[in-house]
């Protein structure tokens, strides 16, 4: 569709608020090799909500430490910088979207379940491939569909028309978005990631999770998220917005060098972990 529509959508994304300053500072700090656990603890303890959340998480059965963890510094040392950033990024992004009632809320929740499934899937595939940065893959999976949340929240009328087309014509959501908005959730997500000054790798993976080969140096990560998306849909974890499974990108499959025999192990891990995390979030 026309240029006017595209620029209008992007203008709306420009109006979005930025991430809380604390989270931006934490993201910067985690990327700084000279930063210590103490530096990070100082920033976190300035924010009571983050502090409470962090201590709740490290004391949950998810981590299973034998002794209660009482201080933020101890939590950071035990869990690690990357996991802390993930936790804080995730919960802040969740907070950022106001809770609506009724149908929108249900749609949002099932999209978050889809995102959580994809995060777990990306991590499980990464573990299978012996990748180094599993936490990074988790965040990429979690945020890959953030553009859909933006549409839901800030372009509700257009998003309604997109969903209508998906239902009536059996389109994939990206195809319906192209028709209605002239731009897909992947591009909107990239705009948001850039605005939030998230790491460029994350922005590129969000932008290309349907066409991983275009992600250049981050094609491997994009391919992992692309496959995780498909596995999540086939396991019915949450709802990604359309009923059909999108095709597996041939280039992505070749890049991953997985054998089909791996699917059972990966999906078994995904379901176990999804049920675990869901039980402690709920």
């Amino acid at each position: 569709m026309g240029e006017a529509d595209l620029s209008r959508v992007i203008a709306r994304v420009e109006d979005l608020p930025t991430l809380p300053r604390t989270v931006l500072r934490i993201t910067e700090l985690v990327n700084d090799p000279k930063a210590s656990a103490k530096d990070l603890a100082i920033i976190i303890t300035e924010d009571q909500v983050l502090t409470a959340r962090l201590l709740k998480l490290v004391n949950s059965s998810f981590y299973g430490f034998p002794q209660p963890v009482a201080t933020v510094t101890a939590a950071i040392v035990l869990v690690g910088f990357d996991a802390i950033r993930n936790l804080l990024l995730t919960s802040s992004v969740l907070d950022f979207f106001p809770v609506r009632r009724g149908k929108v809320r249900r749609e949002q929740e099932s999209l978050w379940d889809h995102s959580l499934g994809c995060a777990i899937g990306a991590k499980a595939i990464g573990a299978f491939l012996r990748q180094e940065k599993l936490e990074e893959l988790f965040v990429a999976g979690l945020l890959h569909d953030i553009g859909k949340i933006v549409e839901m929240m800030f372009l509700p009328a257009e998003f309604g028309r997109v969903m209508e087309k998906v239902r009536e014509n059996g389109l994939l959501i990206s195809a319906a978005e192209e028709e209605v908005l002239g731009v897909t959730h992947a591009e909107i997500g990239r705009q948001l990631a850039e605005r939030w000054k998230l790491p460029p790798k994350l922005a590129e993976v969000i932008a290309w999770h349907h066409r991983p080969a275009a992600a250049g140096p981050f094609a491997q990560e994009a391919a992992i998220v692309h496959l995780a998306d498909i596995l999540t849909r086939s396991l019915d974890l949450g709802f990604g917005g359309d009923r059909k499974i999108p095709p597996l990108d041939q280039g992505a499959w070749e890049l991953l060098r997985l054998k089909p025999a791996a699917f059972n192990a990966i999906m078994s891990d995904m379901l176990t972990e999804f049920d675990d995390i869901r039980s402690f979030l709920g």
Partner: protein
Amino acid sequence: MLVLNLDEVKPGMILAKSVFTHQERLLLEAGRRLTERHLHIFKSWGVAAVEVKGAAAGEGAMPAAAPESDPPDAALREKFSDVLSDPVMQAIMEAAARQRAARARRQKGRHGRS
């Protein structure tokens, strides 16, 4: 979850339970991916065995083969209907059906006990 002797543990496996020394000092928390260095540290602290996660750790840690009797149902087939010309997608569909059935059996087992 699998308990493995230290000499069976390979780098890349995921620790399922935190590892402590005899003095109850934490060596490595659950959820971490094991590296050569970790294994070396465990050895020097006299750790004999650790628990690792069962599946995605790679070879040697595959879950037991599921029964063949979990074919994809009609709803799953419908979701895959546009992509089944790809044999990889066919494999994904079959694995998804199997793992969903295994999960349903697990959940049923849990409810049965409580």
